[in-house]
């Protein structure tokens, strides 16, 4: 019954390394999101994508990039990891929102906990 799969639950990387976090959904959703979760700060949106090859910056895009080559897959890339990127990363997806109906329910993956040493 898995719907949103994040490829790695736990990663440990060194400062300066390139990091890929992969997310795959099997619900044919148009929208996909990457959030980071930190204690006391809740979830903050890094990037989202509303279609293949389309992306929009969220609240905290600095130091991150994304790739959406296929509808089901949304990758988060840290070009040069830094210690302040140690965090829990959550991927989510929703169907496209119809006008005036508000956002749809997010389906989340289990999260990827990244530690940068």
């Amino acid at each position, binding site marked *: 019954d898995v719907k949103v799969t994040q490829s790695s639950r736990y990663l440990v990387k060194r400062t300066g390394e390139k990091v890929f976090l992969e997310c795959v959904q099997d619900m044919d959703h148009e*929208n996909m999101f990457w959030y980071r979760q930190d204690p*006391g*700060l*809740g*979830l903050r949106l890094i990037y989202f994508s509303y279609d293949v090859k389309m992306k929009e910056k*969220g609240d905290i895009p600095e130091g991150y990039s994304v790739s959406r080559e296929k509808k089901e897959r949304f990758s988060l890339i840290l070009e040069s990891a830094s210690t302040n990127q140690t965090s829990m990363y959550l991927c989510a997806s929703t169907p496209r929102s119809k006008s005036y109906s*508000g*956002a749809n329910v*997010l389906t*989340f993956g289990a999260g990827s906990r990244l530690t940068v040493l």
Partner: protein
Amino acid sequence: AQSVTQLDSHVSVSEGTPVLLRCNYSSSYSPSLFWYVQHPNKGLQLLLKYTSAATLVKGINGFEAEFKKSETSFHLTKPSAHMSDAAEYFCVVSEPGANNLFFGTGTRLTVIP
């Protein structure tokens, strides 16, 4: 602009007593409002959703929330806490036609035996 404020970062209740988790929102339009729950080491799960239908919304596990436009609030309640309710709860707001959502900073609920 949309935003949401969760008034308590941590709430502690005894098992069997009522739960109240407070949420205030800011929105220029009639918003959609959500409560999500995150159990330890798990992903977020939807508890309930308000989208301009009935103002009292019932969710899973006995939780409910009431939309009060005059108070711009969407507080989450449960009559009797269970140990399994211990988790972090997030209030979320979105505006019509939006594809993005805005999260509160979360409230950690502790249930004391």
